[in-house]
C-alpha cells in the first residue's frame, strides 16, 4: 500500500536507477576483460567498441599457457599461497583460542592492535626484509615470500579468528575439562571444529591476499621460473609489443577465480567493524 504514494514510487525508482547505473559501471571492467580475452586480435584492433566478437577464439588462452609459461607461475603462486595459508591458520587458530580463553582483555583491544600493525607500511618492512633475504640467501626462493606474507596475513587472521572463537560457549569447554580433556585436546577436538566454517573463510581470505600480493614478489623474485602470477604478468608488460588479447586472457584467468572465491566468503564479509567501533 505504501508504494502507491507517488513520492515513494519516485524515490524507489531513483534508488533502483542509481544502483543499476553504479552496478553496471562496477562490473564493466570484469565483463570487458572476459569479452576481450575471447576476441580475436584482429577484431580487438579494428573494432574497439565491438561488444561481442564475430567469432570467439581461444588463441589468447593458448598463447598465455603455451608461450608465456603461465602454468608454471600459477603453480608457484598456488604453492606459496598454500604454504602461507597453512602456517597462518595453524599459528592463528592457536593464538586466537589462547587469546579468547586466557587473555580476554587483550582480545577486547584486538581491533586497535590490528590497526597498529596495519600502520607499518609494507614498503618500510621491505627494506629490512630485502637485506635479511640477501644475507640468508633467500632471494628467489618461495621461503622469502612465505615469510614476508605472514607479516600481513597473521595479524588479520588472528583478529578474524578471535571473533569466531569468542562464539564458542565456555560451558562446552568446561564440561570437556571436567571429563578430563587436556587444554590442547579441548582446543583441537572441541573449539576448533565448532568454528570450522570461520576458519575456512579465514583461510580463503588469506589465500586470496597471498595470491594477489605484488610488492614483495617484485622485490624478492627475479627468476621467471620462481615468479608468482602477479609479477610474471607485470614482467610481460616490458615486452616490445603489447599483446592485449593475451594480457586479458591472463587477467581473466586470475580475476575470475578471485571474484568467485570472494563471493564464496561473502557471508562473512557482512557484519563487521560495527562492534569494533565501540558501538
Amino acid at each position, binding site marked *: 500500500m505504501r508504494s502507491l504514494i507517488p513520492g515513494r514510487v519516485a*524515490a524507489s525508482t531513483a534508488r*533502483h536507477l*542509481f*544502483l543499476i547505473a553504479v*552496478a553496471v559501471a*562496477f*562490473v*564493466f*571492467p*570484469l565483463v*570487458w576483460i572476459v569479452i576481450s580475452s575471447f576476441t580475436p586480435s584482429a577484431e580487438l584492433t579494428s573494432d*574497439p*567498441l565491438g561488444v561481442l566478437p564475430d567469432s570467439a577464439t581461444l588463441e589468447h588462452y593458448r598463447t598465455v599457457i603455451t608461450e608465456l609459461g603461465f602454468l608454471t607461475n600459477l603453480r608457484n603462486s598456488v604453492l606459496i599461497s598454500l604454504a602461507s595459508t597453512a602456517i597462518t591458520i595453524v599459528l592463528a587458530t592457536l*593464538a586466537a583460542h*589462547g587469546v579468547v580463553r*586466557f587473555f580476554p582483555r587483550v*582480545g*577486547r583491544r584486538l581491533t586497535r592492535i590490528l590497526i597498529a600493525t596495519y*600502520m*607499518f*607500511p*609494507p*614498503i*618500510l618492512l621491505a*627494506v*629490512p*626484509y630485502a*637485506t635479511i633475504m640477501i644475507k640468508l640467501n633467500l632471494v628467489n626462493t618461495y621461503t622469502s615470500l612465505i615469510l614476508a606474507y*605472514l*607479516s*600481513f596475513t597473521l595479524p588479520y587472521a588472528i*583478529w578474524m579468528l*578471535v*571473533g569466531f572463537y*569468542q562464539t564458542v560457549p565456555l560451558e562446552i569447554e568446561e564440561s570437556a575439562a571436567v571429563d578430563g580433556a587436556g587444554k590442547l585436546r579441548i582446543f583441537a577436538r572441541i573449539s576448533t571444529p565448532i568454528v570450522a566454517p*570461520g576458519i575456512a573463510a579465514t583461510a580463503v581470505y588469506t589465500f*586470496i591476499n597471498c*595470491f*594477489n600480493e*605484488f*610488492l614483495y614478489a617484485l622485490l624478492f623474485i627475479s627468476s621467471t621460473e620462481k615468479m608468482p602470477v*602477479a609479477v610474471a604478468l*607485470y614482467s610481460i608488460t616490458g615486452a616490445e609489443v603489447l599483446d*592485449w588479447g593475451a594480457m*586479458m586472457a591472463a587477467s581473466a584467468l*586470475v*580475476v575470475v577465480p*578471485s*571474484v568467485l572465491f*570472494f*563471493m564464496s566468503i*561473502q557471508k*562473512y564479509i*557482512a557484519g563487521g567493524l*560495527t*562492534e*569494533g*567501533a*565501540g*558501538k
Partner: protein
Amino acid sequence: MSSITVNRPPAPTDPSPRRRTVTGLWRRLARADKVGVAFVLPSMVAVIGLLIYPVLSSVYYSLTDQNLLRRDHEIVWLDNFRTLITNADFWSAFGTSIRWTAGSIAGQLLLGLLLALCLDKVRRFSGLYRVLLIVPWAFPPIIIGFGWQWILDDVYGFLPNLLTALGITTENVSPLADPATVFWAVLGINIWFGAPLFMVNILAALKTIPKEQFEAALMDGANAWQQFSFITLRHIRNVIGLLVILRIIWVFNNFELLFLLTGGGPGNLTTTLPIFAYRTGWGLHQLGMASAITVLLLVFLLLMARIAFAALNYWEREDS
C-alpha cells in the same frame, strides 16, 4: 598489504580502554597461565620477528648510508633526513600522497555511503545488487592495472573510443598518460575499487539501527534530513570513523595500485611516498635513504592516527 578486508562476527568491546606498558605486559605474561602463553607464543614470536624487529631495523637503516649492492654501511646519523627535507621531489611525493589519499577516501566514503543508504531501502534485487557491487573489491592490483590500462588505452581502449564516437571528444583521450587528467583517472579507479568496502560495512551498521527510533522521529514531525542527521548518522559515525582511519592508512601505504596503473608517471605526477621510496631504494640503490622516507611515512601516519583516535574516543564517550 592486503587489498581486501573481511570482517569477523560481533565481539564484546572494552568500555574503558586503558593504556598498558610493555613491562606491564611482560609481568602479566609471566603471571599468566603457562599453557595460555604456549598458545599465543608462536604468533607473538612471528609478529615480533616480522613486524617489530623490521621497524626498529628500518629506523636504524635510516641513519645509515646502506646501499642495496653493498653489505657494509656507515652511520650518517640524520644526514638522510636533512637531504630529504630540502629535496623538492620528496615534498612533491608527500603532497601527491596527501591529495591521493584525501581524494580517494572522500570519494569512496561518499559513494559507499550513498550505495549503502539505497541498498538499505530497496527490497527487490538487493542481493543481486550487493553481489555485483562488491566485484571491484575482488580485483587483484595487477588486474586493476591491466584492466583499466586496456579500457583507457588511447588507441584501442573502449572508453576513449566511446567518448569520440559519442562526439564528446574530437580525438581519443589518453586519461592515464595525459598530465591534465591522470590524477582524476587514478582517483576514479581507486574510488571504483574502494567504495564497495565502505558500502558493505556501512550497510551492516545501518541494519543495526532500531527501526522504532525512526517511527518515533516521524511522530515528532522530523523530516528526512533530520532523521538522517540525528538518527542514521549518529549510529553509523563510529563505524565510518574506524573505516576512514583504516582506509586512510591503507591508501597512504599502498604501493601497487599507482605503480601498476601509471608507474608513478607521467613524470612524477602520481609518485606517492611509497613509490618514491621504491625508486630511491631499488632504482637508485639507496636503501638507507629509502628507509628514511618510509620512517617519515610511518611517523606521519602515527601522528594522524593519534588525532583520529582522539576523535573516535570522544564520540564513544558522548554515546555512552
